């Protein structure tokens, strides 16, 4: 871990300004991911801006009958919130499928969206990684890739986004609210928030320098059976090989987002249209452009089979 300076931000605008003034700074909230990465010198911020004091920890109804989730709401609190459990069951289930009780007590809503990949080559500073050191190459390609992405990959990166929560947010069409250093606000649909790796896998979201997440807004509830199915080798405390976040309506229509397969939560609206035809049709669209490795080819079957189980459960 490299030495760094530290400040406690007292206002959103102040935090954004401070971050904009120092391109090598990072925000820290729960710290469940960045501290590990700093210890390994995968992340080497020279300045940490602690945003825990910004009072962004409320869950409130919106005038549109949706829900505004403050950036600092802890995963445990969000999963346990009565409105979330009643109307956004998918989100609660996805949160509880992730990490451990201890980590969820610390991890925040915004931090969860921003967590980094768990690619083991990213974690080992001896190995080339375009995400850690742009332009150095990708040592995962051609290596141990069982966990890696099968869709939306590039020749520069085949890492996955590890979040469970983000899969639910994507299926729910959440909107990320931000404030920039100049005080302007943005509302970014979750579908536009995370990026595919392309040639710049180190740029993972559309956030600009100094831009800070203040809340994630859920649209009004849409009902339906809301199922999160996380498939993993170990029964708990493991990242998804594949996860399915689905909302299935009584008429068989619905939405599906897939985790563990791409650099971002993977949802294709044209696949949603096929849901009524069944898992094969929808998974076929979702995985149409898959470029798996020998080691992770199974994920394509696994998406279809898991989606099939989810649809069956929704009908059951």
């Amino acid at each position: 871990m490299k030495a760094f300076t530290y400040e406690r931000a007292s206002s959103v605008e102040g935090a954004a300004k401070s971050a904009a003034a120092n391109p090598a700074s990072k925000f820290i909230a729960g710290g469940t991911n960045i501290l590990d990465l700093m210890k390994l010198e995968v992340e080497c911020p020279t300045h940490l801006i602690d945003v825990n004091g910004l009072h962004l920890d409320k869950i409130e109804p919106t005038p549109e009958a949706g829900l505004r989730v403050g950036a600092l709401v802890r995963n445990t609190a969000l999963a346990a919130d009565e409105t979330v459990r009643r109307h956004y069951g998918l989100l609660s289930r996805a949160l509880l499928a992730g990490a451990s009780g201890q980590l969820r007590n610390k991890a925040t809503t915004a931090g969860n969206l921003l967590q980094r990949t768990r690619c083991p080559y990213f974690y080992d500073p001896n190995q080339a990684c375009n995400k850690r050191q742009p332009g150095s190459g990708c040592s995962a390609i051609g290596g141990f890739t069982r966990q890696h992405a099968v869709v939306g990959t590039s020749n520069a990166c085949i890492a996955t986004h590890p979040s469970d929560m983000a899969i639910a947010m994507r299926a729910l069409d959440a909107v990320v609210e931000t404030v920039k250093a100049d005080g302007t606000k943005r509302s970014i649909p979750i579908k536009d928030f995370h990026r595919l790796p392309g040639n710049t896998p180190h740029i993972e979201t559309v956030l600009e320098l100094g831009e800070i997440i203040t809340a994630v807004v859920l649209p009004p509830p849409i009902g339906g059976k809301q199922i999160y199915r996380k498939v993993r080798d170990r029964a708990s405390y493991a990242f998804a090989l594949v996860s399915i976040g689905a909302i299935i309506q009584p008429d068989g229509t619905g939405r599906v987002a897939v985790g563990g397969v791409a650099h971002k939560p993977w949802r294709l609206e044209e696949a949603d249209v096929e849901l009524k035809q069944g898992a094969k049709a929808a998974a076929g669209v979702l995985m149409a452009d898959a470029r798996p490795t020998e080691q992770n080819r199974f994920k394509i079957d696994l998406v279809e089979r898991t989606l099939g189980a989810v649809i069956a459960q929704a009908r059951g």
Partner: protein
Amino acid sequence: MQFDKPATTNPIDQLKVVGKPIHRIDGELKTTGLAIYAYEWHDKNIPYVYGYPVGSAIAKGRVKSIDTSAAKRADGVLGVVTTLDVGDLEKGKFNTAKLFGGAEIQHYHQATAVVVARTFEQARAAAALVKVAYEQETGSYDLRAAMPSAKKPDESQEPDTAVGDFDAAFRAAPITLSETYTTPDQSHSMMEPHASIAAWDGDEVTVWTSSQMIDWWRTDLAMTLGIDKEKVHLMSPFIGGGFGGKLFLRADAVLAAFGSKAVGRPVKVALPRPFMPNNTTHRPATIQRIRIGAQRDGKITAIAHESWSGDLPGGSPETAVNQTRLLYAGANRMTAMRLATLDLPEGNAMRAPGEAPGLMALEIAIDEMAEKLGMDPILFRIVNDTQVDPEHPERAFSQRNLSGCLTLGADRFGWKNRREVASRRENNWLVGMGVAAAFRNNLVMPSGARVKLDREGVVTVETDMTDIGTGSYTIIAQTAAEMMGIGIDKVAVQLGDSRFPVSAGSGGQFGANSSTSGVYAACVKLREAVASKLGFNSNDVVFENGQVLSGNRSIPLADAAGGEGLVGEDTIEWGDLTKTHQQSTFGAHFVEVGVDAATGETRIRRMLAVCAAGRILNPITARSQVIGAMTMGAGGALLEELAVDTRRGFFVNHDLAGYEVPVHADIPHQEVVFMDEADPMSSPMKAKGVGELGLCGVSAAIANAIYNATGIRVRRYPITLDKLIGGLPELA
């Protein structure tokens, strides 16, 4: 004491303390955080500083140069010692790969430097500033690719065995099986990382460390440092797990010693978690070919087991075939081991070395063979049970109750409810049951102890034996209490200090039986000293309830101590009973699994182990050993694999996020039954060991249960869902 004749009745047979379910005497220290582990020794008057290792970024080659200038300038840094600074060092005799010293790089994360600073954080930050230039060489990292080049290992390993004519018998057999099985590299992944504190006083060094084998470490550390063994003092009273990963001297102790010498202060070094797979040792991967021929009645007529594994030059094969030499009858048999050179980190002992991967393969093969014969796999095993060494029929097992374990287990587990393959479905789960034999030999090691009696009647045992979480403290206290006729509260046990008599140490499931036998021997000496002091004839003295009785006289034990106390010291040594008789432990593992019909996720539902392992010294600590081993076997069956990057020559998933071991949610109800046994051939304690038996066969029982549930036979561990998904039922 020489143990060369079967034990007769002795004070242990009273079983007033030995054999009782006594909670760990060190349990309170552990649960309250007062047990001091290697890294935690702290004396506020000692100015400890911190060392952080630097590991090689390449797998094979040479260090050209090391630039330490930036590290030395960094905040708080007191010194940097590089592998080039210390030059070529003598390698410890138990180490295959050298731990430190010289330019040669033999494996990834091999230690190239240690940076010492005032704080841990400063040392870690500065370690990242050490710049090492390498000359990289190509290496061999892929066992399958290296198979054709594998060689016959040293004859001392008994690489080839043969009895009768396997080939002819196999050809003639009406029912045959020939299959290949693979097991991956596995990591010990014990909770406590390797850690040491070294402090020099003149030319003598004291090292607080985490070691299973105090005397091995002491010998090898002295050799590596180039000093007399007498100048090395080792302390390892508490150990947070080892599983074989702490049998042999490791780099943390060497780096701490060099770092401390360089800066003239006590230095603490812990290996960071990502160093564990690549800097230390691991269980090597195997490729195993098994052929079995049988008559239609199920009698095995031919059995062959061949295994390929790899290691660094000078290393050893994973002895995966050895159990096949003894487990089942059959007149015609052969085994073979071949060893390839691999430039991966050192392969070495991990819990049940040889047995665990060997039985992972053999006990699937037996299940497959039973199916071919149309026999219940339990019956097939019983039909081929043997009471003698199949290679040397004149040599009998001292005790062997494999069939009893299988039969009792079948009854307890409800084996009769097992259904045809792929025929039991409960909602989304495909459910099946599997069984496997457990089999591990009883090894014995010389073990010494010193026993002191003081005027309060307290008996203190001193031995360099270790407790790696197994319960050594407790069974040693029970042994001394039984021998001296006192309550366990009157016994104090001091372990893990090189000033104490050399013991068996912890490994090979030899620790419990050997170390308590050493304590037994020392207590016999102390009893003689007590009798002599009191003027009793030692042959008719009885020690009970804190009294020494002879005829109609009764004197408190404490009185015998006098002001100066009494001491008994001895070492148990072993005759040839393990040669004249095959001494082994047996068991049967039963497992029920559910496999998700859609995703192929396997979840264990029930586990039972029935063990026949001689006298059980303490059913609580023994049970803990067995359920821990069953848990490890579950990991081996379903999760654990060090993933090899065959291009760059290292284990990629080198932390506990990437190398998944079971968590609580993976482990269901576990039941353990111990058969009531006492083996007079094994030792005066009539005990054996259970620490490795519990692992032997578990993974195969899980594999067999998955087959019973799904009809999919996976011969490549771990059995992850990607290996099942292609054979699962079509979705409705």
